């Protein structure tokens, strides 16, 4: 997939990648790379899981070759993502963009 390779080669905390597929009503996809300001430890993982549960889209959180459903607080913690590294949020569904933006805001505000 070109969107993911694009984000990994130029990891910035604001780069959004939309899929090129337009003109059909296939589910919306949205992807965003976020550079973590703090370790993805228990507290932000809990907040992330609760936020992710509010959306209907299918969401994934990718880090270092691993991919988890962010509604699983233990799975998010098991990524062991540390401050300064980049994680990628991907969502597919009607509220994909809102979901990714909301989760990115949680990650960006982690302390």
């Amino acid at each position, binding site marked *: 997939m070109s969107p993911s390779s694009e984000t990994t080669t130029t990891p910035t905390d604001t780069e959004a990648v939309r899929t090129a597929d337009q003109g059909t009503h296939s589910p919306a996809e949205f992807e965003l790379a976020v550079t973590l300001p703090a370790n993805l430890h*228990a*507290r932000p*993982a*809990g*907040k992330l*899981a*609760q936020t992710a*549960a*509010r959306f209907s889209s299918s969401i994934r959180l990718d880090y270092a070759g691993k991919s988890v459903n962010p*509604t*699983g*607080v*233990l*799975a998010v*913690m*098991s990524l*062991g993502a540390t401050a300064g590294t980049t994680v990628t949020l991907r969502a597919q569904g009607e509220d994909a963009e809102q979901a990714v933006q909301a989760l990115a805001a949680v990650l960006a505000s982690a302390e």
Partner: protein
Amino acid sequence: MDQPVGIVLVSHSAQLAAGLRELLAQIGSDTVPVAAAGGAPGGGIGTSYDLIHAAITEVDHGAGVLVLPDLGSSVLTTRTVLDDHPRPDVVMVDAPFVEGAVAAAVTAAMGADLDAVAHAAKEARDVAKL
């Protein structure tokens, strides 16, 4: 779901149960009713029928109660309480104490029902920590 599922932490140690309760509040589930039922009657290491029964009553806000025992007589004493006061919406689950409680509390905070919260706690056994 108006009210979140309640969670009871049963441990041999009052401090262990209270410390886990504190952790759960920090992980973002301070909206979820969580009660610690740790220690023997009158203090010390052990389990207390009365503490467990009172804790269940305390966190029962209408959406059901999940009871997490640490091990051994926590299971046995909880079972006695549940046998004496059988209710379909108060269940004990077999789950890792810390991980199960964290998963249950976060899931309850999402507004999930008792079945989903119980499932999240049990599933914690299969999530690698590292």
